[in-house]
């Protein structure tokens, strides 16, 4: 009797285990499937329009809706913009994150207010950043330009980078701080020589996430960076970006140009992929000293 009851219980538990396994496998399948579907669609639809000219030439055939030439303007513009914005975001993000983790007390009001701000800023849609950047631009009499785009995208990237970096630095054990302090190190020395080093791979990921969001965002650069067929040679000139190139190309009534949009999307995806892989390869070099 007792025996049968427990074996029945076991069967039920095994059944639950089985159901959950199926659910998990299904979820994994959906995630991986989506990735394959998206990349597949982009490549399948974009491949016919893909050629060397796409990545080596600026658009030809009048305005940016031309069917000839390439999107070098947007590739270079996007790289300039995202690189500039990411550097700017690091310059502001790192000190803030180090402050709330190294200098502020654990339960400091200012630190929790800062973290709350990150969450709110994180949630603001990028079009709002774009609009905000636009207002500031007008106030200073700035035209749509690479500079305005960089500033706006930096603003967009800042909370993303900070929040990811904060999560990483929060994991540093208290004792590691003590070890450094007990050697007579100041907070700054501890922050830069020990904490940053210990967190380098995680910080790199934070930077990459922010960079990815920055280079892929269309709404924030719509009003601020403008669009142009030329490659910008100064910060005050407008700059083309890949997301906007895709947006404009998709919006035309010509199928040939629409096809080019998918090719542009493929280029953008590959660009992000290559940069991520490069950075990860670079990061590997720094992981060997990490204390687990």
């Amino acid at each position, binding site marked *: 009797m007792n025996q049968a009851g427990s074996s029945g219980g076991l069967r039920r538990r095994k059944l639950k285990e089985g159901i959950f396994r199926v659910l998990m496998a299904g979820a994994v399948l959906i995630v991986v499937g989506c990735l394959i579907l998206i990349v597949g669609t982009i490549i399948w639809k974009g491949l016919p329009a893909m050629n060397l000219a796409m990545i080596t030439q600026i658009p030809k055939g009048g305005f940016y809706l031309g069917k000839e030439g390439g999107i070098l303007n947007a590739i270079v513009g996007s790289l300039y913009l995202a690189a500039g914005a990411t550097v700017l975001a690091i310059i502001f993000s790192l000190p803030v994150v180090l402050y709330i983790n190294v200098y502020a*007390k654990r339960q400091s009001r200012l630190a929790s207010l800062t973290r709350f701000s990150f969450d709110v800023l994180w949630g603001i849609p990028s079009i709002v950043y774009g609009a905000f950047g636009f207002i500031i631009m007008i106030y200073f009499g700035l035209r749509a330009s690479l500079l305005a785009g960089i500033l706006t995208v930096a603003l967009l990237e800042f909370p993303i980078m900070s929040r990811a970096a904060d999560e990483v630095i929060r994991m540093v054990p208290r004792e590691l701080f*003590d070890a*450094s302090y007990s*050697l007579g190190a100041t907070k700054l020395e501890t922050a830069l020589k020990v904490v940053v*080093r210990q967190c380098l791979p995680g910080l790199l990921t934070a930077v990459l996430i922010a960079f990815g969001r920055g280079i892929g965002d269309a709404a924030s650069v719509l009003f601020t960076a403008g669009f142009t067929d030329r490659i910008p040679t100064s910060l005050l000139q407008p700059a083309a970006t890949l997301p906007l190139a895709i947006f404009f190309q998709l919006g035309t009534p010509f199928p040939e140009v629409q096809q080019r949009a998918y090719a542009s999307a493929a280029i953008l995806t590959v660009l992000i992929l290559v940069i991520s892989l490069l950075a990860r390869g670079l990061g590997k070099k720094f992981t060997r*000293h990490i*204390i687990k």
Partner: protein
Amino acid sequence: MEKRPHISVQNLSVYFDELQILKDVSIDIPDHRITAIIGPSGCGKTTLLKSLNRLLDPIDGVRVNGRVLVDGVDIYDPGTEVTEVRKKMGLLSQRPQALPMSIFDNVAYGPRIHNRFDKTRLGDIVEYHLRLAGLWEEVKDRLDEPASRLSVGQQQRLCLARGLAVAPEIILGDEPTSALDPQSSQNVERRLIELKRDYTVVVVTHILRQAKRIADYIAFLYLGELVEHGPAQEIFANPRDPRTRAYLTGEIS
């Protein structure tokens, strides 16, 4: 043989928020001796140790009353530079905390930030202190490897070398052998005994036999109160306070 006190704790009380961890502790810690702070878990041993180099500072809600004089200077005086206080003391923690860098850089960390070297001598400084900690022979061929690849016992001796390289006068140990195997523990104990010739050593331990093996001076803490302190032989042979006797005989632990 009267020794001048190297560290003098005077009426020290420490509060975590409303909770009083240390109650009016006063003790002179003798120079060039190993002083062991003993007592049951949660009695404030580590707090007392950390108060000696102001490692309580970064903790939330801590309040410190009283004075701690090191070489006659009150380290809690607002005019005292905290990094100078800490430079005088090497710390061994319960679990060795190697810094995220190479073996060489771990030892060179202190000398580098205190500018206590010229580049040609840095290698000598590192070698000297690794020898002092009894680690040199084991690591001399792999100084560039990450410190995390060393065994825990080796890491603890690396931490010792790292602390010594700052040229401290005092070595603090917070149950420095609790994470180590017996062999490594013995090794660390032997180092500490050798080092007391040149340093003042303060060790927190919950292992009575360890205190008997290495300590010259004993401080017994119970519930935040310094019950009794004195030369090790006296305390172990003739504890005056019944609570000390109870602890030594294992009635309270």
